[in-house]
């Protein structure tokens, strides 16, 4: 993957007021619904703690739980595949499909499938795969990428969707969401019955029963996993939870944190396979083990992909998911993109945050996202050497602060010569490497007397 140009992407998006407005509307809507829903769940904070504890338990003995899951899943009749990276995952899925002569597949929403870019790969091998979640379906026919973890098409207006359905699918032009939904329903209904395989992701892998869970609202995951004779679930290994007895806790925090619903319409818990209905699970590592072995990044493996941190992030609210240039967007998406695609691809992303902490506050499993972002900044700067003006200022600062004589001299010098950089009593045009600061903001001027002088005066009086 090429380096992601966050700032360039953001600038482009900000010049398009419809996208900015749509993203703002969608994120605010989800936050308001979340607020109302949580008011009905008195023990919500306790549930968050319990979920966190369960995920900590997984990290404590990751390999043990993974082995336990695989063993129990096999007992259920599931076929387990393991992929080290995206390429391996694609080959495994292709192999499963080839052996069963699959020509047409239907799939419910899965970010992990997006992560391994399975669609163009299957297409190149003559296998057509339809996305059946309405948002994903829209994105697929628009040849775009999801702009939000749980609401992939929030950046598109109904007018754009109407035009898309009219031009690409021959639907009579209408902007009515109800009609557009009905059209997609009828269009995809046929595909479910014709499909040779159904695909899904997984929200949770349950170690003690070998089951996996898919939550959804539309019924498209139920269709995709029930009607075709083959079900292939693609999932990251981090979705583990210890026991089915932990599932209630996660079900109670996921939907409120995500769309703001109390529960999703459907929760599908799969524990069975048969000769007539094969179930394969493709477990994907793709950078996750690197995260596990990294003392700072490993906490991000607890993420349950609710998208809450995106909704609440002041940067995301403004630019939406596409600015992040990756399948994983928003605050936690920065960390995942860095971990999966590497620091060279993601080096701009850790700076796409105000570090305000709203993501930490909303995260249902209390991942300290700002702390991780700060650490990623440090790593990026260590690799790239950092910006010249930052190094100059920090260097100057440390000299001035550790040497009293220089401190005194520097202050007097600065307060004397600052006049030529002042306008309306603000420093507006600093010279040399410092000009990058004053390009965007004005800085308060140096006061007449230094703190040291004021302190001395106070002591003497």
């Amino acid at each position, binding site marked *: 993957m090429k380096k992601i140009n966050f700032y360039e992407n953001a600038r482009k998006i900000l010049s398009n007021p419809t996208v900015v407005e749509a993203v703002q509307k969608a994120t605010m809507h989800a936050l308001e619904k979340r607020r109302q829903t949580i008011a009905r769940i008195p023990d919500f904070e306790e549930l968050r703690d319990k979920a966190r504890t369960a995920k900590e338990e997984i990290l404590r003995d990751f390999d043990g739980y993974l082995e336990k899951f695989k063993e129990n899943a096999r007992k259920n009749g599931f076929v387990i595949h393991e992929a080290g990276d995206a390429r391996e995952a694609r080959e495994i899925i292709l192999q499963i499909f080839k052996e069963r002569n699959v020509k047409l597949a239907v799939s419910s929403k899965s970010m992990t499938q997006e992560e391994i870019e399975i669609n163009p790969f299957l297409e190149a091998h003559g296998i057509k795969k339809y996305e059946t979640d309405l948002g994903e379906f829209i994105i697929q026919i628009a040849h775009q990428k999801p702009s939000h973890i749980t*609401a992939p098409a929030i950046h598109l207006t109904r007018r754009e969707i109407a035009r898309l359905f009219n031009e690409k699918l021959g639907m009579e032009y209408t902007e009515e969401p109800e009609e557009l939904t009905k059209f997609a329903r009828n269009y995809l209904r046929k595909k479910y019955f014709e499909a040779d395989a159904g695909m899904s992701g997984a929200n949770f892998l349950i170690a003690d029963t070998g089951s996996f869970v898919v939550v959804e609202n539309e019924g498209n995951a*139920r*269709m995709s996993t029930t009607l075709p004779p083959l079900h292939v679930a693609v999932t990251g290994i981090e979705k583990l939870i210890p026991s089915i007895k932990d599932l209630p806790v996660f079900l109670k925090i996921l939907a409120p944190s995500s769309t703001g619903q109390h*529960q999703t*319409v459907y929760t599908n818990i799969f*524990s069975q396979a048969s000769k007539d209905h094969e179930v394969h699970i493709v477990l994907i590592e793709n950078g996750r083990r690197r995260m596990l072995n990294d003392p700072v990044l490993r906490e991000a493996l607890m993420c349950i992909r609710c998208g809450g941190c995106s909704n609440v992030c002041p940067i995301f609210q403004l630019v939406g998911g596409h600015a992040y240039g990756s399948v994983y967007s928003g605050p936690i998406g920065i960390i995942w993109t860095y971990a999966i695609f590497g620091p060279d691809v993601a080096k701009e992303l850790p700076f796409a945050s105000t570090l305000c902490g709203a993501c930490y506050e909303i995260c249902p499993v209390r991942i300290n996202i700002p702390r991780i972002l700060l650490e990623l900044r440090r790593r990026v700067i260590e690799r790239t050497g950092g910006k010249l003006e930052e190094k100059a200022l920090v260097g100057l600062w440390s000299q001035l602060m550790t040497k009293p004589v220089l401190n005194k001299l520097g202050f007097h010098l600065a307060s004397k010569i600052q006049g030529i950089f002042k306008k309306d009593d603000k420093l507006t045009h600093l010279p040399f490497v410092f000009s990058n600061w004053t390009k965007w903001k004005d800085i308060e001027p140096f006061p007449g007397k230094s703190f040291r002088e004021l302190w001395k005066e106070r002591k003497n009086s």
Partner: protein
Amino acid sequence: MERTEKFIEELKRNDVEVYLTSRSSLNEDLNEFFKKQGIKRVFVRPRGLVNQLSPDIEFTEKFDEDVDAGLSEADFGIAYSGGLVELAESPSDKLPSLLPDIHIALLKESNILDDFDVLFENIPHPLPDITFIVGPSKTADIEKILVKGAHGPRRVIVFIVR
């Protein structure tokens, strides 16, 4: 019963239509419902209470274009979420609550549980497939505008049998 009341309250919040009935009047109530709604052909999961009915209309175990509604007995109800729980031994067991535009679920009042925890503590192993159903299928993928009836049923109706 307090639990039943909470369950009904949550069902209604989830846009589920609720009828209270008893063993003795279930058959009559259902037939009347079919008549009033113009339901002539029903795709059923022939199990439990469904097998004890004597309908005035046609019950079928095969789904086709002419099916007006799906009928199944839910194994449990969850008062916490107003959810119906369906246990499936095979994928085809899941279809009556999924394919038709209208899904009618029968539920014995004694099978209403307080919360998920109770369910997972009492469920037999090896586990069947489990589906929680919380109201009609829906989507808000276009400008966050709620549309009922995405890929699954547009209406969900529950007959609670006392």
